């Protein structure tokens, strides 16, 4: 197994005027290909900051971040944009789909920024939409879809460029528990069937139970990192 993520002694400090607020205090972590990791912690524990750095959205103050063996923590904005496009798929709590834009076009969006031809783009988008179980709703606008369906579109968008890793930030936070369970089942299926590496942030213990590995943050540090021996399996009906 190869390392998808490897961070060394990662620090992040925010400046609020004259006061320095430490958000991350020396994180060391490795995530192998094919892992399904749940990152937990109370708000202010540093887990969001950590995810922003993993997502190539924010620079660490010090320390190193290797994405598939390449040091990426100190790259430029444009290089990061390219990495986010090619290697990272984001799934957000609030879905973050473009309004008044069909499911298909939303899924095509990441491909618009890397020069796919229109036909290729269309085919690939249809393929991933079918994979997340929305093959028959491609022309629906986000407001014509349920929360769970919108999140499936978002997952399809995250998958479309075949990323090395999916970062999901509280993906079930806006969903009821039944729909949340379905989404977690989808993640599990993608993880086991497609071997996609998933890192998921949540503060709900029962959501974290779907992951194979659980990491707990507190005060900018990792206080617990263990594999989950009793993975909760979502039974697809």
């Amino acid at each position, binding site marked *: 197994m190869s390392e998808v993520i490897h961070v060394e002694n990662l620090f992040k400090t925010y400046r609020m005027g004259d006061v320095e607020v430490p958000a991350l205090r020396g994180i060391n972590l490795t995530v192998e290909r094919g892992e399904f990791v749940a990152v937990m912690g109370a708000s202010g524990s540093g887990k969001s900051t950590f995810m922003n750095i993993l997502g190539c*959205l924010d620079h660490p103050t010090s320390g190193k971040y290797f994405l598939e063996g390449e040091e990426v923590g100190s790259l430029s904005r*444009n290089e990061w944009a390219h990495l*986010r496009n090619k290697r990272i798929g984001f799934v957000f709590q609030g879905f973050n789909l473009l309004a008044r834009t069909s499911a298909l076009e939303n899924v095509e969006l990441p491909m*618009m920024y890397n020069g796919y031809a229109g036909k290729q783009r269309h085919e690939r988008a249809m393929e991933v939409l079918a994979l997340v179980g929305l093959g028959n709703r491609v022309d629906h606008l986000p407001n014509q879809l349920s929360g769970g369906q919108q999140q499936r579109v978002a997952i399809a*968008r995250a998958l479309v460029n075949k990323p090395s890793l999916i970062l999901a930030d509280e993906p079930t936070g806006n969903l009821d528990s039944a729909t949340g369970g379905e989404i977690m089942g989808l993640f599990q299926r993608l993880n086991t069937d497609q071997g996609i590496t998933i890192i998921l942030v949540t503060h709900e213990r029962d959501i974290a139970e779907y992951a194979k590995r659980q990491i707990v943050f507190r005060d900018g540090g990792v206080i617990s990192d263990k594999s989950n021996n009793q993975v909760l399996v979502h039974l697809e009906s």
Partner: protein
Amino acid sequence: MRWLMTFRIALRALARNKLRAFLTMLGIIIGVGAVIAMVAIGEGAKATIRSQISALGTNVLVILPGSNVQGGVRAGSGNRYTLLDSDARAMTRELRSVAYASPVLRRQEQVIAGNLNWGTLAQGVAPEFEQIRDWQIESGRFLHEGDMDSAAKVTVIGQTVARQLFGNDDPIDSVIRIRNIPFRVVGLLVGKGQTGHGQDQDDTVMVPYTTMQKRLMRITYVQSIVVRAISAEKVPEAQEQITLLLRQRHRIAEGREDDFTVRNLSDIAEAAQSTARVMAVLLGSVAGISLLVGGIGIMNIMLVSVTERTREIGIRMAVGARGRDIMLQFLVDAVVMAATGGGIGILLGIGSSEVLKLWANWPTLVSPSIVAVAFLFSGAVGVFFGFYPAKKAATLDPIEALRYE
């Protein structure tokens, strides 16, 4: 590829917000429309003034005989008998800057037709006079070369004379008497109205200058010569050449004063032209300001749009849009709005100047160059006023943008 994509994204964004896009464009539409219409009005006025002045005779020169000096008393121009009809012929024949030249002799005469009579200005002129004064014939014909050679007793009469002597009857082929000599009326001039000095130009009869010389005035010289230069620009050149030619023909030794004077009306022309120019600049700048205001409107909406679409920008950045892509998208947005507005504005401007021409009978002239300039300028307004909002969008922090509610 990427450009095309950005273009499509921008167009789609505009299509989703049609009303707002239209309202934003309205500023540019009105601005460009105003520029086109205003400049068309200005150009139309300039063209009208130019043609009116040239009808007045911008490129017309008048040559008068020099003043008679007797014992230190200078009697003023036109008191010597130095000009001959052959001088006029020589000018047309020899000078390239001269288009037409005609001798002119004038005297107040009493004109009689039947039992009516009328005092009017009799003018002896050559056929070229018609072109020089740009004075058309309403019916019949103007004097021609044959009339000159035979000193024919024919006349062309002005509107006022026709009204006074013939009322509403057709004067052609009637006979009028001047100093008891019968003249056949061969032509009726179109009305020309008054001069700037309140003199009625239509109160005149024209006869061949030879007839005037031999039968009416019994003189061999001519009182003045009127000349039309080939263009207004050639007037100074014509003036110079006429002076040289006449000095030569009149055998005036070096260092001696001319025995004639050459006058032109180009001062009036220049004044009128510069008035028209000032008007055009004024109208154009007023319209230009409205275009600027339109541009500020675009910037305003673009800034609102950037704020409103912060989350969208965040999403795009998260899935891999670079700052450049975002910037291009908003810039294309602004330019498309400005250029579309510009296009509609051009149609509006041309349309309204046509309406002015048709309904208000106002002379307008839409020049293609101003249309091109207005269109390019509206595109430039889009780039200029779209740049700041686009830059702002491109430099947003994706984390902040994604969190934006």
